[in-house]
């Protein structure tokens, strides 16, 4: 039996001596056992940590040229893209065991994340949000102002992650570094190992930069620790369920800049022009990929795909092609382990659709043979949006006209995030405009839902510029 010990934390070296006790959480399945080391921390520890990390930033990261920062982050992404990189190989053992995702899913997600976190991606996002990235280094001439401007990031960003999607902590540490902020992230019980490993990579490349970052882990609801941490922060970024975010928000002092990324949902739309035989196989594979990445657990994933009627291929025929693609994908990138409750919900819902079909309703249920690996249920658009139980369970709504979709989304517009849109005729622009007005934060193509560009306005927020404070010098008159 292989025995792996991993740390569910990362701390600047000066703090190591302050850990009084480590407790161990054990995860094991068959051949591999993971001992997760978790430090016991208290209020005092948090105070020492925040002081130290601010000091480390002031002595290094605050003055590090943006070019150097981009270089370090780029190098980190490149190392993670190397299939033989030891930390990547370690993560591929720990994350599947802890989250239940299959190693293939985790591998695909690491590749997707790191491929969109390279040098050119960072320069693009900096240009998009800040214009001239050198505003982060020093005062620069601003032609619009006819003077000089400089952008300052917060000294310390605190972030709370409450889900098991490995991408999120990594993204936030990158963003913090780009605005030259120290960052303390509290990772979730669902997946606490990726972030510490990622910071080890930063340490390999630039140990002083890593000293400005920390990962902590505790069970939620540690009132005192959370309050102290929020009290020390200059900005807070929250990821989590709607209710979790709501209760955390109450603990954050009002003066502190706060960005909230609550749980959201996605959907896809394929117009009749694209429902043709030439594109069928490829589009079906793309839909299947959108529904299978992260086993549909990420907010990027679709709950419903709308297929427009009156194309050459009918929505039901299209479902058959998606079924083939879902099965093929499941062979290559198996669905992960799910809870009893999740499996039960899928069986129950499958049966409901099976009986509606038997009864003669215009409904179709296609599913993996014996287990709950994947499910497709087709019905005519009921005019209301029902969420999917996830874990590769996709609802297909056959819709007469794509413009019937937006009214059904109106009641849930606050939760809309991603939409994959493939219309292929002159209605596309108008349709996209309506989705934008409705609250959709990102419109992409089928197959691309799970891989947003580094540039996207995450949940409609500018993730870098929202954190910045500007100082302008007007030319003396």
């Amino acid at each position, binding site marked *: 039996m292989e025995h792996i010990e991993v740390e569910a934390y990362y701390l600047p070296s000066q703090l190591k001596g302050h850990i009084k006790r480590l407790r161990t959480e054990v995860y094991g399945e068959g051949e591999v056992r993971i001992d997760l080391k978790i430090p016991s921390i208290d209020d005092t520890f948090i105070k020492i940590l925040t002081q130290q990390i601010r000091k480390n930033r002031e002595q290094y990261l605050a003055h590090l040229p943006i070019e150097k920062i981009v270089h370090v982050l780029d190098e980190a992404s490149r190392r993670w893209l190397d299939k033989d990189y030891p930390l990547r190989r370690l993560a591929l053992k720990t994350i599947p065991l802890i989250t239940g995702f299959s190693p293939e899913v985790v591998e695909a997600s690491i590749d997707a994340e790191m491929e969109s976190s390279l040098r050119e991606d960072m320069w693009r996002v900096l240009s998009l949000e800040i214009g001239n990235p050198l505003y982060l280094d020093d005062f620069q001439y601003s032609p619009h102002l006819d003077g000089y401007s400089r952008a300052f990031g917060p000294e310390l960003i605190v972030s709370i992650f409450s*889900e098991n*999607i490995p991408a999120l902590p990594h993204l936030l540490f990158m963003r913090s570094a780009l605005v030259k902020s120290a960052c303390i992230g509290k990772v979730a019980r669902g997946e606490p190992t990726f972030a510490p490993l990622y910071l080890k990579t930063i340490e390999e490349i630039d140990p002083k930069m890593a000293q400005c970052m920390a990962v902590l882990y505790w069970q939620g609801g540690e009132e005192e620790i959370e309050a102290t941490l929020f009290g020390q922060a200059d900005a807070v970024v929250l990821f989590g369920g709607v209710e979790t975010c709501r209760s955390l928000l109450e603990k954050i002092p009002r003066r502190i800049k706060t960005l909230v990324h609550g749980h959201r949902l996605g959907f896809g739309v394929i117009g009749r022009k694209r429902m043709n035989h030439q594109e069928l196989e490829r589009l079906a594979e793309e839909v299947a990929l959108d529904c299978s990445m992260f086993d549909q657990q990420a907010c990027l994933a679709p*709950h419903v795909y709308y297929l427009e009627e009156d194309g050459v291929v009918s929505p039901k025929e299209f479902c058959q092609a998606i079924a083939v693609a879902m099965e093929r994908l499941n062979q290559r990138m198996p669905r992960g382990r799910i809870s009893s*409750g999740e499996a039960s919900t899928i069986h129950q819902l499958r*049966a409901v659709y099976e009986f509606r079909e038997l009864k003669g309703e215009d409904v179709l249920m296609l599913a993996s043979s014996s287990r709950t690996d994947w499910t497709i249920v087709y019905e005519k658009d009921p005019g209301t949006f029902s*969420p999917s139980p996830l874990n590769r369970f996709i609802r297909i709504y056959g819709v007469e006209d794509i413009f019937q979709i937006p009214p059904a989304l109106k009641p849930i517009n606050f939760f809309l995030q991603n939409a994959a849109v493939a219309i292929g005729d002159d209605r596309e622009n108008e349709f996209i405009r309506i989705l934008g007005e409705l609250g959709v934060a990102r419109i992409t193509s089928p197959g691309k839902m799970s891989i947003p560009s580094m540039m996207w306005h995450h949940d409609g927020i500018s993730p870098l510029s929202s954190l910045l404070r500007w100082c302008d010098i007007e030319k003396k008159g």
Partner: protein
Amino acid sequence: MTELPKEVLALDQKIINFIRKGVDQQDPEGFNKLALEVFALQFKSISLYRRYCEKRGIKPEKISSWEDVPALPTDVFKVMEFSMVPSKRVRTFMTSGTTNPEERGKVGYDEGGLRLMDATIEEAAASFLFPDGMKTKVLIIAPSPEMAPHMIMAYGMNHLKDYFGLPQSCFLVGRGGFEVETLLKELRSSEEEGTPVTLCGGSFGFVNFFDACREKGLRFKLPSSSRTLDAGGFKGRSREVKREEFVEECGEILGIKKEFSVNLLGMTEISSQFYDSTLRNFHKGLPLPGVKINPPWTRTVVVDPETLKPLPNGEIGLLKHFDLANRGHILAIQTDDLGRKIGEGFEVFGRSKEGGARGCSLTIDEMTRIEKGK
């Protein structure tokens, strides 16, 4: 009213005879034979169910064991009805609809089906709730069947009251809600007169009553042989209470001995009731822990949540019940309750909850809670 078809009446009679042999009979062959007969008749009469079975390659002539009868998942009752003789339906019971009240499961009963349920209530309660044959005042923290015609618990408790209760027995949830004052008065008079009480109802009703008593500083010392029967869990309608704590509170507030607190698993989709064996074991002098018991006209199988295949004894999975008294709808029911086989019966842990932090997508549960909260 015209009678049920002869073959149905004949089968009902056989099932009633089987139930009337009581809970101590051991007749697995008899059960198997009847289960297959019930299945054959349901297969013949309920066309949707027949097609469901055929899709799975199951036909009555192809199977020789009740275990092979395809089970109907409980959620299916939310979208359609399954009655062996739909034209003879006299009663429809509905599930309490824990999430969406509009999506309530509906189960139709014909006269014969109600007679079967009555028989199960009489036989099971006689063994598990009144093994001592005691006549008690049955006080019910639930609405009467007149007030709640679609609530199966109201029907069952009413039958319990009529069959086992003393004349003063009554329901305690009226048009204006829970009649606490009436209950307090009845409990006091029982204390004074020495009439033993059977207090029964939904588990959450007990907890809310205990909370009210504690607030008012009320305590009772009910006559010995008084007992409680609670069912149905808490479902967010009172605080959540562990079983041991519940039993302790029955002792502390009502003065009921711990062996006299009986829990029942009842479901709208299942005609029979699964009592725990606490009081029965105590009465028989058996030092066994209380677990849910399958009366001989029922079976419970624990299945793997992924494959729905049976699990070895002791492993936790989803409960699948078989009930001969379900003749009027569907014999085999696949629930979403987690549980396991243990000792002479089974344990039920309730609906399985999601474990740990999951992804960042909005979930159905989250959306439901948010909609409710707004």
